[in-house]
């Protein structure tokens, strides 16, 4: 049997079951009508997708920048590390999507509130993982560097940063998935465009086939971002292939 046969079988079974039991479209559309909707509404979907993708892009970039700055600061200043790290770990367990309504009050229905949400949700795994990577260095390597009288900057550049790359990528992998969630939930709470908004709209109008089409696009965004991280990993750390960073728990 070829790989993916089960997926194919599931899709065929879904199509047949919906037709056989005459399930109404608004409850569960068959894959064929989802596909038809994907083609017919391509322009609409692409327009809303571009909005969501923009929110994710800006928010993620900000989260990476903020996470890197904070992680480096925590790695360099022990007090900051001892003080902030437990707070960050605590905040990981707090459901951050609940703050989405507050962001809408602050920044309105536009881009800002979504970018802020994406930033907030993606920031934590990046900062926490990168800090761990910068600090969890082989003690022997540090001793070796001291023998060579390496400066703090040299130790940082040649030992800590390369050591942190796999951790950073692992954090990024968690962050990209969360970023999509953040953008969609923020759009649920208050928006006038974007895939999350379109989903709610379809829901209210019971246009379930289009809703499924939105889900397919969201899935494509997720898979695309995931693949991007994979590619980034090969580019950043070709030596660490197959090496998995530690997974910090994925707090939203």
């Amino acid at each position, binding site marked *: *049997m070829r*790989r*993916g*046969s*089960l*997926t194919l079988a599931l899709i065929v079974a879904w199509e047949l079951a919906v037709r056989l039991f005459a399930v109404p479209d*608004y*409850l569960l559309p068959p894959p064929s009508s989802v596909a038809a909707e994907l083609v017919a509404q391509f322009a609409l979907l692409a327009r809303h997708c571009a909005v969501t993708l923009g929110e994710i892009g800006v928010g993620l970039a900000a989260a990476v920048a903020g996470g890197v700055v904070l992680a480096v600061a925590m790695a360099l200043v022990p*007090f900051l590390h*001892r*003080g*902030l*790290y*437990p*707070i960050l*770990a*605590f905040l*990981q*367990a*707090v*459901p951050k*999507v*609940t*703050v*989405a*309504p*507050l962001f809408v*009050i*602050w920044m309105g229905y536009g881009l800002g509130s979504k970018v802020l949400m994406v930033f907030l949700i993606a920031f934590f795994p990046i900062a926490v993982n990168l800090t*761990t990577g910068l600090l969890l260095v082989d003690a022997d390597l540090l001793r070796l560097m001291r023998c060579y009288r390496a400066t703090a900057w040299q130790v940082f550049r040649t030992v800590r940063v390369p050591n942190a790359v796999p951790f950073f990528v692992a954090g990024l992998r968690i962050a990209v*998935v969360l970023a*999509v*969630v953040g953008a*969609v*939930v923020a759009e*649920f*709470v208050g928006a006038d465009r974007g*895939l*999350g908004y379109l*989903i*709610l709209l*379809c*829901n209210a109008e*019971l246009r*379930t086939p289009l*809703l*499924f089409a*939105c*889900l397919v696009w*969201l*899935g494509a965004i*997720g*898979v695309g*971002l*995931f693949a991007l991280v994979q590619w980034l990993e090969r580019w950043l750390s070709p030596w660490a292939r197959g090496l998995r960073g530690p*997974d910090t*728990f*994925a*707090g*939203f």
Partner: protein
Amino acid sequence: MAEHSGAAWRLPWEPVLLASLLLAGWELGARALVIPEYLLPRPLSIVEVMVSHAGRMLPHLALTLGEALAGFTGGVLLGIVVAFGLAASPFLRRELQPLIVFSQSMPTAALAPLLVVWFGLGVVPKALLALLLVFFPIAANMAEGLTQVNPDMLRLLQSYRATRWQTFVKLRLPHAVGYLVAGMKIAAPLALIGAVVGEFVGANRGIGFVILDAAARLVTVEMLAGIVYVGLTGTALFLAVEALERGLGRWLVAPR
């Protein structure tokens, strides 16, 4: 993370100090700059509202917690079952892996509106969303625990002619428990998130509804009070799983 070297456990004063400084700065800054309460309420007034509105908010929180726990239980059971399937059958492993990866890179929370169409405004769609979020880390961790056993041990059991069942009970299952608990630690806050996001999309009860309702009325203090309640509950769930982990203690194999 921290290196607990000595037996004497010392109160971590740094995070407490830093958190108090941040909160004090927030309180004083908000007072000094006269920031309106609907934009950013002060910490003290949030606490005040948490106390004065406890009678109204706690029943909603209890409902949300119930939804989260129901979803958590269902998700853990389903995850364990799927993990058994994945561990037992290479065919399932090969076929389900890409599906699971796809379903995980898709934001599961986006399914919330669909669940509302299917199951109405009641408790069921919230619990189901929690279940969906919980399911993956459990299944993934448990499957890893069942399969990534020490090959030497496996060979040892083989040389004793252990049956498949014996290998499963004596080696795989005990090994997987630690992984299961680690998955539960990830999943516990997710269950709460599932319940709250489900309530965001369509509900007339629950703490998610309270938060959204307060936001609609621009009563930001109430909203933040609700958020803090959710945060405390999430932390409590996490700590509960950690307590379970400590209780199981010596049977656990630490997941790598």
